[in-house]
């Protein structure tokens, strides 16, 4: 038994998520806020939690609603929670839910709160579409105009090209490189072949399909009844393909580099809608309320590198720090959950774990080591299950702890890569 830092021990009591659905499909009519609310409502229901025990809510989201930027507060205003539950929204790209979880854990460790809900939500079916600079300038000037004449004059400056809306792209603001281009670059630098990537994607789908079929993966899902008719009930992720084959994957064309590339829609995670949430408590409070926690947070670490280099390679820097803080090595770890943004990124990260050079960059003399594939993403990962940016971290936490429990394991390691060249790693333990 150990605690991270010098604080109180933090228990993860339960985790629930909505099904993950490819954007523009089953959940497209539900906003990120409503996905978050649905998920947290079910977390409270399922765990028979009294809402009055909750003291804080932290939620992550990557593409916030322009109308309600603090999604956490909107979720905290659920009718079964007291209005006094303070809430904050955090943003750390694809590790936003992890940030939410570690923020909540820190508050518990510090003794500021004893019960918190953390998680995240994303609806990539509902991203804000922006007006062009010219159009918004004209609208702002017109709204400030004092006479009809000057209003007309302001509006008359709008040109047809100003009417083309701007959709947010998943590109690095600093380098202009899209995430796909970064993944493509990493495949080349780390010599990850197309076939290796496709094989990994196939594995992700096969394992996720098996986990869905035997109910291990669906156990963490709250079936979502889609309002207003509720006749559509989504009980499982809809991106998992148990019928895909290596030939089908091999037939897909590279998206980001048509000539020399290897990253395809098939070996990348899809744009996804969904939400996931975790119930955290201090160890003492969990026991006092009669809960048997899924497990405990033993350590975590964040790291970052130059986004212009290998954008998604920072988990390689975070993992050894988290392990050292846990006082453990990779040999002690029963299960590893690694977020799958792209197969090329997973395989690059795994190579980094084995690399002395990367170990030295992280300040260690020895590499983390080779991850036993039989312990890695045993029910698939984001490539198959899907990746709602703000929610994934919470999904992985629940998946890891549930499976650790089923296998009777003790320690689990998770890593998540994030835009901006950032990485996250966390070690959890069951006893």
């Amino acid at each position: 038994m150990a605690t991270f830092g010098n604080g109180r021990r933090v228990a993860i009591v339960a985790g629930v998520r909505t099904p993950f659905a490819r954007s523009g499909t089953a959940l497209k009519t539900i906003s990120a806020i409503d996905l978050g609310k649905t998920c947290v409502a079910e977390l409270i229901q399922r765990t028979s939690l009294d809402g009055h025990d909750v003291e804080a809510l932290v939620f992550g989201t990557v593409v916030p609603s322009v109308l309600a930027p603090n999604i956490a507060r909107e979720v905290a205003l659920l009718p079964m929670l007291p209005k006094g539950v303070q809430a904050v929204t955090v943003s750390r790209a694809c590790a936003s839910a992890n940030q939410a979880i570690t923020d909540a854990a820190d508050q518990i460790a510090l003794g500021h709160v004893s019960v918190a809900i953390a998680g995240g939500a994303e609806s990539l079916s509902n991203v804000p579409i922006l007006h062009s600079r010219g159009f918004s300038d004209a609208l702002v000037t017109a709204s400030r105009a004092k006479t009809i004449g000057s209003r007309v004059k302001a509006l008359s400056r709008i040109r047809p090209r100003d009417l083309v809306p701007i959709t947010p792209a998943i590109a690095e603001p600093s380098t202009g490189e899209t995430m796909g281009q970064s993944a493509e670059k990493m495949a080349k630098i780390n010599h990850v072949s197309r076939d290796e990537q496709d094989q990994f994607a196939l594995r992700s789908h096969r394992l996720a399909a098996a986990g869905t079929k035997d109910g291990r993966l669906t156990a963490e899902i709250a079936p979502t009844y889609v309002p207003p008719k509720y006749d559509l009930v989504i009980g499982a992720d809809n991106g998992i393909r148990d019928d895909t084959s290596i030939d089908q994957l091999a037939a897909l064309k590279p998206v980001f580099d048509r000539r020399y590339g290897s990253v395809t829609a098939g070996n990348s995670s899809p744009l996804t809608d969904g939400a996931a949430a975790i119930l955290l408590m201090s160890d003492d409070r969990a026991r006092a309320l009669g809960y048997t926690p899924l497990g405990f947070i033993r350590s975590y670490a964040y790291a970052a590198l130059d986004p212009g280099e290998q954008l998604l390679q920072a988990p390689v820097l975070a993992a050894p720090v988290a392990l050292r803080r846990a006082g453990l090595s990779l040999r002690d770890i029963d299960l590893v959950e690694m977020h799958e943004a792209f197969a090329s990124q997973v395989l690059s990260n795994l190579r980094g774990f084995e690399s002395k050079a990367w170990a030295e960059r992280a300040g260690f003399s020895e590499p983390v080591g080779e991850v036993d594939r039989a312990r890695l993403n045993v029910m698939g990962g984001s490539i198959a299950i899907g990746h709602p940016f703000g929610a994934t971290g919470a999904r992985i936490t629940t998946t890891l702890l549930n499976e650790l429990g089923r296998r009777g394991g003790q320690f689990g390691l998770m890593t998540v890569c994030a835009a901006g060249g950032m990485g996250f790693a966390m070690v959890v333990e069951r006893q």
Partner: protein
Amino acid sequence: MTSALTTDVRDGIAVVTLDVPNAPVNTFARSVRDEFTALLDRLERDESIRAAVVRSGKPDVWVAGADIEEFLGIETSSQAEALSRDGHALLERLEKLKTPVVAAISGACLGGGLEAALACAYRVGADTPKTVFGLPEVQLGLIPGGGGTQRLPRLVGLEAGLDMILTGRNIRARNAVQMGLIHELVHPAILDEIAIERAKALADGTLKRGMAGGPHGPRHVLLDENRVGRALVFRQARERILARTRGHYPAPLAALDVVATGYTHGTDRGFREEARLFGELAVSEVSRQLVFLFFATTALKKDPGVAEPAPAPQSVQKLGILGAGFMGAGIASIAAQQGTLIRLKDADPGRVGKGLAAAREVLRDRLTKKQITRQQLDDYMTLIGGTTDYSGFRNVDLVIEAVFEDLGVKQAVLQETEAVTPANAIFASNTSTIPIAQLASVSSRPQRVIGMHFFSPVPKMPLLEVIVTPQTSREVTTTVVGYGKTLGKTVIVVNDGPGFFANRILAPYINEAGILLDEGVAIDAIDRALVEFGFPVGPITLIDEVGLDIAGKSGAIMLEAFGTRMAPSQSLTRVVAAGRTGRKGKKGFYRYDETGKKRGVDPSVYELLPTGQRRTEVPSDEIQRRCVLAMVNEAVRCLQDGILRTSRDGDVGAVFGIGFPPFRGGPFRYADSLGTERVVRALEGLNSDRAPRFAPAQLLIEMARGGRRFYPERGHPFPG
């Protein structure tokens, strides 16, 4: 004695606060009227007072109206007429007072309260959901007696005024300001401030007295100010009243006449006519019964459901509902509106989804009527968590089962539930027929098993019948009764027994209708006779609505419990055997179209009945006598057998649960109005070797012998 009015004069403005001591609401009781008279004296006399503001010291009520207890002392129509005339005189003084009076209205402004406000020079309302305006007198079989029939239509227009007077419905503050009923609507925090400012302005003459805009526009000119237009409005209103009341309720017609008199012959004649008809109605049988029901439901609101001292009810924060059918979803929809967290369970996601959709439909309807906001709808739906397993039942306070009406199924869910819920959770069954003791027999904690019999459709039907067994703990009863009231229901507590109360008295009534069918009486003749008696629908329509299969099942249970006197008719048995289920199967005694709309008697059903296509005529009054007395007799048996605690519960149960005509007060009140002796004689007249089912209940015979009644003939229905 402490006074209800306190007057604080500052800067020449008298701020008068009305707060009737030791009463939950302000009413115009005699003592309050006397204080108002004294206030008017002072305002007329005291030159230093330039204007006055009348506000309430109670947060949710301005003035709720007359003191209804006072009505019980009225014995003659002339007494009531005098009461109305006194009110007219008082309000006329108020209206003509040189010192302007501003009404600062926060909370309910009803009946005499609204009539007083109408006589004020200016009305400011507080923008709160509790601020409502209405003239509910017709709901008690009366008409407004304080000049409301004359002042209101002139202020808001004939159509809007008639609507309020004839329906008794409440108008929300925002609508009140739109229709000109009040001059201004302000945030409650500045109500007094603005009222005082307006009082000063009226006194200075910088603000003129007058309407808040008043009725205007072409519609007003065509309908209000034009004799032909008014005649049209009155004729249409009369038609609507007759369609709604079927001539059973004289008050709305009287109100209409009084309003018309005012327009035709001037308000002086109008006021006189108002007082005269108020006097007549105040002592009418219909009004006495409606006032009785008012007192009975008021008494039930205070009744904890067990003998005093009653244990405090437990709070119900989380409710488990088993079965997401129409009943389960209906219960969920009303519980969510009280902020209860709900776990709604059914066997498969499809059924859970249907339940959620049904609950949303109820809320959607309220949203359309602007009774709730969009945000509230979302919140209420969020409180209902659908599930197909027992997750989330670990912290439920109460579980209501609304699963398939079968003892085995219900016993199984009871045992499953007890395994996953805390030891102090209550298990309530929404069965309509299965004795609760039979369910409790498999329980590990029978003291926490109880019946909660809701009526369909749950959001609309006002009654909840709570059924206790000898083992049910008193705390469980008070908790369930308390929660039922929270849900807005009128709750009666009855002892366990087949059919409990509501369905038990319904059984002989339905059977009698069926026996009339056996004899060859036409389906529509039977239904028509009982609708004429005052039931909302006839018995045959009723069982078509409920479901013939369910009626058949219920009939079998009653036969088993009570023997041949409750034997179902051959007609019902045969129609059920033929597979007809009523409206839900679009095939019953009546025909239904694709959308489920009733399309007249299905002539082909007669082939199934004992007399085939041959019809017999039985006079309407005999149909009524047979069916209704069978019900009355059974109600008395329920009292005699201890199923009912009081005749009051029986009357309320029959009126609000199964549609016994309210203007007849309920089966016991009806027996009293006929006279118990006459009831016994009539039953004995129907009783024969061929029809021993009419043998009068022992208690009824004893009461008739002693010339006793169920309620006192005069005064308060529940003395002491």
